[in-house]
């Protein structure tokens, strides 16, 4: 049924009116999180125009169609400037699919349950850290599912990048230069584990011994052979203003070295177009940035589902576009009915080459669905656009405990100025010994200690 009162103009007017009053109330027809909590899906929170690309474009682009240079103008308002530029001039294409309406397909099951059960229990303490009512570290799920400020959205993202208590991602990275040539090809593992806000792994919600830490996170490399065994370990304090400790290990030097970590606008690896600061659009401690503000709301195109590729044994993705047809991942996007656009400034980085970042959050699950940073002249600079998915398609699925695994599938990080692109993808396994997945019991000992680094370096 199409209610004329709630046409596209109404939606736009509603978003604009709310923005002008400084109101952030997600949902158009009804409060989103009330609807989600009651119904488990969000159809009744939005009019048709925000749930279907066909309706939004008035039939010019149908669900299942591909967005390309010839029709991108119809959805220009649904894209951030860098993806728009890439589609218009660099041969990038996006396949479209139906809007996901089921809340439980939009985040890990346990995370959503914790979000619902802990709703309303979070606050910021005097240091700006997210704490419970009694001042303890956060206890799990999204602390601000019905966010009222940009800071709340960023706080949730910074607290938990992968939304699991622990994750291991076997990954591959390709760096493509402006000529379309793949200059660097890395493979390795990324591990992260939260000692607080735990919802799956015991003990919950805290690993008492490390209650003062936000996360352990490591990355190690198997390829190229020059990098084999090279690894880094980050230990993040829970304090949202303190930089993590960084340890690095290069096997030949046989000693773990501690490195400074306050230089966030540098890539971790040669050739990559991603600053440390860009990771997950929230790669720095929360309060090293400031002036968080919501600057817009509206529909958006993002890769929220159908991003998993079980047809390939190791889940690898195809590529297309760019000068050599190798610049962009094949990506499926859907119409996100409501994205919240937040800007922030690097207030604690007087030498930052950027003036601000603009991040798009999906109002339904608050995951980051797009990020663009702007240089100090106000020109678009870098972007970070990822794809998420429930790892389930037909009878194929990857389990995370009792439920299908939910995670990111691939990421494109672009520097629109230099033309460099970094593609990352999560693969099933590397060398039959490192497997992607969540909430593994042995993650800490295998990947997240200094002795683990030494062991990985000897592999």
């Amino acid at each position: 049924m199409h209610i004329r009162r709630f046409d596209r103009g109404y939606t736009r007017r509603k978003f604009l009116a709310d923005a002008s009053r400084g109101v952030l109330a997600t949902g158009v027809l009804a409060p989103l999180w009330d609807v989600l909590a009651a119904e488990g899906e969000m159809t009744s929170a939005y009019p048709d125009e925000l749930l279907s690309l066909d309706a939004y474009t008035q039939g010019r682009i149908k669900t299942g169609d591909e967005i390309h240079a010839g029709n991108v103008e119809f959805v220009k308002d649904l894209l951030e400037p860098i993806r728009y530029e890439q589609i218009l001039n660099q041969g990038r294409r996006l396949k479209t699919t139906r809007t996901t309406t089921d809340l439980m397909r939009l985040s890990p099951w346990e995370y959503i349950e914790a979000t619902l059960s802990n709703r309303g229990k979070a606050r910021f303490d005097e240091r700006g850290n997210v704490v419970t009512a009694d001042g303890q570290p956060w206890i799990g799920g999204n602390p601000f599912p019905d966010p009222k400020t940009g800071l709340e959205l960023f706080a949730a993202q910074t607290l938990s990048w992968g939304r699991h208590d622990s994750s291991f991602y076997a990954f591959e990275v390709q760096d493509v230069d402006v000529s379309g040539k793949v200059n660097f090809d890395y493979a390795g593992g990324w591990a992260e584990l939260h000692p607080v806000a735990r919802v799956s792994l015991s003990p919950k919600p805290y690993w008492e011994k490390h209650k003062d830490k936000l996360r352990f996170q490591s990355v190690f490399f198997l390829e190229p052979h020059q990098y084999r065994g090279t690894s880094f370990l980050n230990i993040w304090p829970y304090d949202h203003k303190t930089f993590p400790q960084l340890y690095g290990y290069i096997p030949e030097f046989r000693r773990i070295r501690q490195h400074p970590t306050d230089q966030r606008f540098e890539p971790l690896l040669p050739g990559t177009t991603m600053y440390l600061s860009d990771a997950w659009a929230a790669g720095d401690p929360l309060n090293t940035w400031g002036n968080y503000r919501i600057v817009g709301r509206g529909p958006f195109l993002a890769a929220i589902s159908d991003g998993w590729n079980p047809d390939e044994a190791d889940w690898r993705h195809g590529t297309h576009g760019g000068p050599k047809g190798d610049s962009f991942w094949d990506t499926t996007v859907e119409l996100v009915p409501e994205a919240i656009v937040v800007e922030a400034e690097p207030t604690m980085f007087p030498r930052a080459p950027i003036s601000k970042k603009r991040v798009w959050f999906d109002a339904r699950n608050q995951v980051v669905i797009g990020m663009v940073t702007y240089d100090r002249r106000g020109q678009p600079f870098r972007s970070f656009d990822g794809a998420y998915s429930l790892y389930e398609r037909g009878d194929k699925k990857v389990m995370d405990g009792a439920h299908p695994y939910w995670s990111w599938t691939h990421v494109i990080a672009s520097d629109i100025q230099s033309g460099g692109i970094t593609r990352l993808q999560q693969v099933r396994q590397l060398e039959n010994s490192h497997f992607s997945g969540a909430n593994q019991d042995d993650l800490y000992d295998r990947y997240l200690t200094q002795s683990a680094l030494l062991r990985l370096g000897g592999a």
Partner: protein
Amino acid sequence: MNDGDRVSLRERIAVWLIAHRLSIGILFAAATAFFAVGIPHVELRTVFSDLLPRDDPFVQVFKDHPDFGNPLTMLVMVRCKDGSIYNRETLDKVWRLTRDIDLAPAVNHDQIVSIASSKARYAEAKPYGIDMRPLMGDHPPQTDEEIALLRERTRMAPMVARFLVSEDERATILSAQFIEHRLEYGETFEYMQALIESARDDRHEIHLAGYPALTGWVYRYEAQMLAIFALTIAALITALALRMRHVAGVIVPIAIAAMAAVWAVGLVGWLGISIEPLLMIVPLLLIARSFSHGVQLTERYVDIYAQVRDKRRAAELTMSVMMVPGLTSILTDVVGIIVVAVAPIDAMVRHAIFCGMWALWLIPAGVVWAPMLLSILPTPKVAVHRDMTKTLPRLLRGVGELVTGRRVRWTGIAVAAGAALVVLFAQKIEIGNPVEGSNLLHANSEFNVAVRKINNDFPGVNTLELILEAKRPELADWTAQQVDTVLTMTALQQKMEASGAPPRASLSYADYLAETSRIFNGGNTRWLPLDPDQRAISAAAVGSMMGTSAANFGHVISDDLQHATVSLWYADNRQSTVDTALAAARDAVLAVGIDHPEFRVRLGSGVIALQEAVNRVVQRYHWIVLALLNLAMVLMGSLAYRSWVAGFLLLVPVNLSNWALLSTMYALGIGLDVNSTIVAAIGIGVGIDYGIYLLSRICEEYGATNGDWKAAICASLATTGSAIAFTATVMALGILPWYFLSGLKFVADMGLLLVVIMGINMLLSLVVLPLLVFQLKPTFVSRATVIDTPRMGQHDPRIE
């Protein structure tokens, strides 16, 4: 077919063309409209690499590895006039400049390096790990302690100390790299120039250098060139109006110039060929040539009209009589312009197409259309310019006396002695015209001063790059960090530093690897030498890039870590420095071996190698160009006068003027370079026109004076000689302002040399050619009908 038939054929053509002037006029108008449509597509663009000889091995190395040698980097030097840079004010200035450079259009935000940027780091091995931090904290130092700390940290960073802070600590460098496909050189340069101008004060000198800055200066001066262009055109038109003083005399030369210009510019627009602004003086010369051709034609028309008193008939006769000298002189111009295209320089080829066709369009415009125009324009008053030229003909008749009178022997001896002298001095000319900085700009230009200052305080910009080029760059195994590659870099550096002409500094990726090895092994300098082991070197490579980007090493290795360069800095780019540096480099390359399993060593790129490449092409082609021109001129001259003697006779004054030009250059301390090759070619091509016009007139007057050599020569000098003197003046007027006004040395030098060679050409044509004719009394002159129109018959009554 006898001569009389040929004359009549020319006349018949002229009569037919004038009879169909309306249809032909419409045809020309349509063609002009067609070419005019192409004009908006014309692009004025300087591509510096197109000024280099494409077949030179050094240029090929440069084009294969254009990123080495920092082609996209601007350097800003801040020098404290009254002491060390380590004071609050200077450091604050450096901090602000660094931040402001980050706002420059098209700057690569990740490639801004100064002691205030996060890229300039010191590294210290401490018990708990490696402390690798920016030299400066998160703000410019405010206290003496903070300043002392910065100085201490800078000293702990050898690479920084060598390349960012001068030895006397009074100057520091800020460097910024720009993104090529986003770079609008003019816009970025103006931003950077404004930045440094506003930062200068009583205590600080601030200089801007680097290739993008050079391009910016050239673009700024090219904009200035448009104003000079307009000014010189105005001067030319004024001179024309003063000289001619009648409508036809002013309109016809302008119309010829305008039509040829529209056709030429429109053609390159249609062909999609960009115009090289640095060579814009040649189109201006062509406009002056159009004017001079128009003047020759109109004056002849006035002469003929005085006799026949019928506009149409006068136009027919003018077209007929001017056909051979007009065609021949224009064709010699064309050859003089296009012959430089034999040199393998892309800019020359484009220039040859653009300007060569422009010159060629003077045939329809000047030979066909102009007489038609004369036939419809108001009747000129014959006596108008007689008074104006009274002095000049008298003077030239004096010259006639010198070359035909009693003193002719002394004149001959003087000319022979002068010729011997200029030939002797011309032998001493040197190849190359080195300027510290860029030869495009004056030695005292702001850019070249900046380069000199930077060269004084830092390793500078005079580099020689020895490239280690991966044979299989597609392989995953990065060639730049393989054992053989790294050891070869080190060996090359050692050999060059131990040579008889050591560079003032050298740098390669091996230096960074050694420093990384030291830091990661605990900091002791004993760890500097790299183990000749792949694991050790790979580990150093990984360590060197921890927390940084491969692009940060773009000056020593390619972004994909496959190719590498050994950079060697020299104090200057004098030819002796270039020669010794290249000789040492050849020995070093041979010693380490050119061909290795995974890479080859290529000599070389950088300022030193490219300067040598340009010198070599001048050396190779200067004489080839001149020889080809002589050949073409002999053929055309012989054909026009149907006499080999005539062909060779015409060559004498122009070659003598070329020797005279070389002698003058030697006397002025200017070496042979690309400019002078272009000038010499044009000098011969355009200069021979004077001889052609004068010789044609001598032939004509010889018949009219019944074989009186002296009278024929004197009359020719007084009439055509006068027009030659005027046209030479017109061209000098058109070109000389460029010497005084252009900020581009390249253009100014061309202007000066063109004026010099045109002046010498004029002088020698008016003295040497008639002298030779009088001495040799060649028989082709007596075949008066070759050039003359028998039905016009009488010599100019004004000569009486």
